[in-house]
């Protein structure tokens, strides 16, 4: 067991556990976007940063990837942490304002406006879909390509992947959601083109049999009425 202090509260955790797990065990809320139980931690969204160390050596680390260490002093909501989180949320709002998840997080942190040039991007490159596809669906159909501002997610060479079973897992986990599974053949994809964060079909019983190419995505709902 490893003993550490989170917000001055001592806690003992198993070796190999992350700071995020330790903090959540104690009930300290830490917002996350790219973290999901059952998927490997990645540390892309940086929302879960916490402050460790003391004095001039204090620094921020992503709690979802940082392993718990003996004697570590962690602060999950210091001024420095909150400043970083607010700025990250502002950046997220500036890029992806349509996401309900991002809007909710922003409002919870009292970020009500953003000061950058407004963009409307479909993807925040959190990599949840990539990990979902690889680690839970055992498909590895999609992955990251490029770097820096040209980084994107998709299939190799943008060709239809033989590995993809159109399971829709990628859309299901997406916090910003759009077009993740559509790749080169939107008409054969599930919910292709949907800007809705939680497409209604996902909740339906017959979801597994669905091969939806209706336009707009919520067409199934409209017809029922």
């Amino acid at each position, binding site marked *: 067991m490893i003993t550490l202090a989170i917000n001055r509260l001592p806690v003992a955790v198993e070796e190999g556990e992350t700071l995020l797990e330790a903090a959540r065990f104690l009930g300290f809320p830490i917002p996350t976007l790219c973290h999901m139980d059952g998927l490997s931690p*990645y*540390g*892309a*969204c*940086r929302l879960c*940063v916490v402050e460790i160390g003391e004095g001039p050596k204090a*620094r*921020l*680390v*992503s709690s979802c*990837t*940082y*392993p718990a*260490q003996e004697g570590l002093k962690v602060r999950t909501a210091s001024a*420095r942490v909150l*400043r*970083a989180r607010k*700025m*990250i949320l502002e*950046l*997220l709002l*500036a*890029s992806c304002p349509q996401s309900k998840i991002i809007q909710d997080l922003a409002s919870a942190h009292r970020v009500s406006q953003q*000061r*950058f*040039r407004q963009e409307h991007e479909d993807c*925040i*490159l*959190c*990599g949840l879909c990539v990990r979902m596809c690889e680690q839970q669906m055992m498909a590895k159909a999609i992955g*990251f390509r*490029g*770097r*820096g*501002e*040209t*980084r994107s997610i998709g299939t190799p060479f943008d060709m239809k992947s033989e590995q993809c079973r159109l399971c829709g897992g990628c859309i299901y986990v997406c916090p910003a959601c759009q077009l993740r599974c559509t790749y080169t053949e939107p008409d054969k994809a599930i919910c292709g083109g949907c800007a809705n964060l939680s497409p209604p079909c996902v909740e339906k019983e017959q979801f597994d049999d669905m091969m939806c190419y209706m336009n707009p995505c919520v067409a199934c709902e409209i017809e029922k009425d």
Partner: protein
Amino acid sequence: MEKLTSIDSFHALQGRLLADRDPTIPTIVISAGTCGQASGANDLIRAAKRELLSRELTDRIHLRITGCQGFCEAEPSVLIEPRGTFYPKVGPGEMVGIIEAVARGEVLENLLFVDPHTGTPVEKQTEISFYKKQVRTILARNEKVDPIRVYDYVENGGYSALARVLASGDPSRVVEEVKASGLRGRGGAGFPTGLKWELLAKQRNGQGKFLVCNGDEGDPGAYMDRSVLEGNPHSIIEGMLIGGFATGANKGVFYVRNEYPLAIKHLTIALRQSRGLGLLGDNILGTGFSFDLKLVRGAGAFVCGEETALIRSIEGKMGEPRQRPPFPVEKGIDGKPTAINNVETWANIPVIINDGGARFAKIGTKRNTGTKIFSLVGKIKHTGLVEVPMGITIEEIVNDIGGGPVGRARIKAVQTGGPSGGCIPANRFDLPVDYDSLTEAGSIMGSGGMIVMDDSTCMVDVAKYFMNFLKGESCGKCFTCRKGTQRMYELLEDISQGKGTLERLSLLEELALVVKDSSMCGLGQTASNPVLSTLRYFRDEYVAHIEHRRCPGGVCRDLVTYSINEDCNGCGACAKQCPAEAISGTLKERHVIDSVKCTKCGNCRTVCQYDAVQVV
């Protein structure tokens, strides 16, 4: 090539090579690194070979083709040994004259280097102001060896350090020696090398530790690692062999960026030769110590210089940093303990073993020992690679070695440490150059790039340039680094176009601090440095852009106008060069620029010999 099977046979070979050498025979040394070749060294080599062969002088005059000698401004340069005569900027037609002079034992006065301050010619390389203040422990060896001849290296004392540690048979003493030397990693972060080795040596998992030579030098304007890789690959191989012996690693990887074809060629040859000599592979020199090296070429991502990304790249995965801990020294390549050192660090190892750690520690300052190579570039008279003891002031590097500003300009800052570094203003040039002082001043040592800027440089433009580089080279994993660099670029671009406001400037600063704070790897954590350090020392320039819509450096196109002042004598050179045909005027009378047509390309300013083109 005979395979050496014992330490004695190595010493016998070295003795034989030394006995065969006649140091009195004059040798023409041609500097032919990538830079030398680009400025015409290949023509010199051809001319020299032709002359020596046709005049049957090959026994009386030797020719040595070496890697870079450091003085870029003077390339292609020729050095005559043992006299030490230095000829800068030699044209292919002048080679004949030089060979004739060498044959007669004379010096060609008219081709010598002329000191820009005194105006007098200087004959000897060591007396040229550029070389005088340098302590060239590593770079001077570039002149002594032909990088594709292992015997050249052995003859100059090469692999003696390896033979010595193998003969002593005590790995822990090697680690102690490196620790005593105080050598700190030359890649930029300055982690003590001896400590890293000690950590690696302590790792169990005996069969499968790795050593890596990080040759992924990506900073714009920095090329010291390239010149060592090209000019003296065996010194790095020797360093890694010693490291392998000291830490118990038996596999090594050279990670060299593919943009360095000559370095890769020379390394490949060097690896083949040392393997042929029995200095690499199984049972080295019959001591039972085995170590092998392979070469991995980087695919061009700047971020792969970061150690965890580099490891992933070697494993064949996408170059993307990961969380440390676990540190590479615990879990590196394929999960095995790995120590990664920079090219220059490895090249220092044989020096430390040969001279002793205590003697090495005497160079430089207390916590920053040894020498460091900087690539001195930018708005300065003598550009080139300079190797100086740690703790030397920036003033000495810029003014004494670099020869000061070009023309009438005034040097205003030095940018150190590449894109992740920062600017140091002229009023702080008394700062000693070492890891701690530079960090304190808001910059970093980095791998050793040093870009000199004068008053025609705009600091907003500099920050914008580096941010443009970083937004393309960030791996894109951390949202703050990827989006943060893009947004910082956006804000900087607005300021440089005169669209900035003071609120946006404070937003830029706020964002820069968060990017620095919350990114995972070294790239992201230092990505804000160009913005933060220029803001720290040159806030007035930002304010001038925002409040007065004026660019003090005359660089930001949207904020400047070109005009011709009364110094114009009407030569018409500018009008001929103007691509927009915006300059008009009659010959021998003052010309005028039509500001509507002017595209602000700056051609007129470059061609004007009378400083008559003004940018306000």
